[in-house]
């Protein structure tokens, strides 16, 4: 676009957004890396520069290791279930029919509801007197009842179930769109070659979903690593840190213990883990297997 007053126009139109963004997003981001090199407790102004001490402490921190391990467990447990379930459901509800579209939109209900509502609802489902145990008792399966969120072996898997419930709708939509994108000729050719059912799925469809799978895995990593409200409200990371994740630990260090310097180091640590996993995904999905063959 040309015309008089172009430069002044560009500056004046960009200025408000840039100012907000620079002051409240970029500046704290820069400070985050800086703060992580200070020892800084409480609300006093006393900050002691300690170089990489916080990071060394992080490396040896058992609680952080546990939280990271739980994050990765959640990623694997919930991730496998979500992808398998989403693929199966997407296979049944793909297409442009009104019923299919309606069902897909129902599956997104949990996603548009606040994470707080999800967490509170599932807390009551897993309550010792809650929906799940009452259902098990009614079915005569008293032996299976648990205090779910209170037992160290079951707290994290219970959170994973709530996470799957919350997240799976989005992946159904994603995979339905992916299946929709497979050209008709491919399916016809497979038909002619007598490739059906599981055979066709593993040998043809699964490979053709390459780009959708990459998006799905990337989203999973980001979603799981950034889990906070669900764990914080369902279990507080307990019992005995058995469901602690990185961000609930960060919150504890920052706003319960007022360890601001160490908490920012934790934040940077979390960020590095997410970046590392993202790079790993880029590497694993570096080549479209279908394009390579063509």
């Amino acid at each position, binding site marked *: 676009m040309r015309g008089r007053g172009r430069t002044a126009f560009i500056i004046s139109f960009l200025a408000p957004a840039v100012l907000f*963004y620079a002051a409240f997003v970029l*500046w704290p981001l820069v400070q985050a890396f800086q703060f992580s090199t200070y020892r800084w407790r409480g609300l006093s102004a006393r900050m002691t520069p300690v170089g990489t001490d916080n990071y060394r402490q992080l490396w040896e921190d058992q609680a952080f290791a546990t939280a990271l391990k739980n994050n990765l467990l959640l990623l694997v447990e919930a991730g496998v279930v979500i992808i398998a379930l989403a693929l199966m459901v997407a296979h049944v509800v793909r297409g442009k029919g009104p019923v299919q579209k309606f069902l897909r939109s129902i599956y997104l209900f949990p996603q548009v509801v606040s994470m707080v*509502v999800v967490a509170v609802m*599932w807390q009551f489902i897993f309550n010792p007197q809650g929906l799940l145990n009452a259902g098990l008792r009614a079915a005569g399966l008293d032996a299976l009842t648990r205090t779910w969120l209170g037992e160290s072996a079951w707290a994290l898997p219970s959170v994973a179930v709530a996470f799957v419930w919350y997240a799976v709708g989005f992946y159904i939509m994603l995979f339905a769109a992916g299946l929709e994108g497979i050209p008709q000729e491919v399916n016809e050719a497979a038909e002619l070659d007598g490739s059906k059912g599981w055979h066709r799925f593993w040998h043809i469809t699964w490979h053709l979903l390459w780009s959708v799978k990459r998006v799905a895995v990337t989203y999973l990593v980001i979603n799981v690593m950034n889990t906070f409200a669900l764990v914080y409200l369902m279990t507080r990371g307990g019992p005995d840190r058995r469901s602690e994740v990185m961000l609930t630990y960060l919150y504890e260090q920052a706003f319960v213990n007022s360890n601001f310097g160490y908490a920012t180091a934790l934040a940077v640590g*979390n960020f590095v883990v997410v970046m590392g996993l993202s790079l790993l995904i880029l590497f694993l999905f570096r080549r479209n297997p279908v394009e390579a063959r063509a």
Partner: protein
Amino acid sequence: MKRFLSGAFLLAFTLSVLLPLLWALMSSVKPGSEILGQPWALPSVLRFDNYGRAWGEAGIGRAFLNSLMVTVGTLIVLLPIGAMAAYVLAKYAFRGAKALLATFLGGMMFPHFLVIVPLFLLMRDLRMLDTVYGLIVVYIAYSLSFTVFVLVGFFVNLPDELAEAAMLDGCGHAATFWKVMLPLARPGLIVVGIFDAIGLWNEYGLALVLLPSEANQTLPVGIARLTMTQQYQSDWGALFAGLVIVMLPVLVVYSFFREKIHETMLAGAVKG
């Protein structure tokens, strides 16, 4: 047989998605003692007064108004300044335009918790901690990335000829934007506005840290607090009424605009 199996699977799956939501809805009109006493049973009496207690004594009414204020207040500033920036980035070539756009989009990559401590201290130093307008300012800043991302996509697809014609007719750059281009981008503004509104209405982490006092709390923070305080009073009826008050507006808005929301979600996913 195969059709039957996939039908049964689909039914079971759909029910398990809906069950917790319907259970919450049913529990919201139950006498409090029956929610954990007989979780599967229908209410023995319908207690609509749960909603009254949730709204009044439990503080959900005040939290509702706070959430409304924060959401509307954010959108009123966010949409115009986001659209202005997106328009310039989409239609005007200048040095650094690409880098600036990338800087905005980069904001979608990192979690808010990465900056939560510096942000908390910044807000404290600016004396905006625990103020509703402070949270609005932060929400505007953190919603810009997504807003600019979607709106750039809309403006890029508007033909340049329209803006050029307006300028030949004597409109300046700004008048061209406000009178011609912005009205044409209305569908985009609506979609991104709905998306932002849902996200802001539901937001928890930033609101938890930046609005500590009870009088300022937004709905998600208020509900979370209620879960803890009700452990002593056990008014679970009011708590579940509160849950429904949080999720109903969002589900209604979502149902109206679901096609548009699906498109935007997928567009974001496929490009991102």
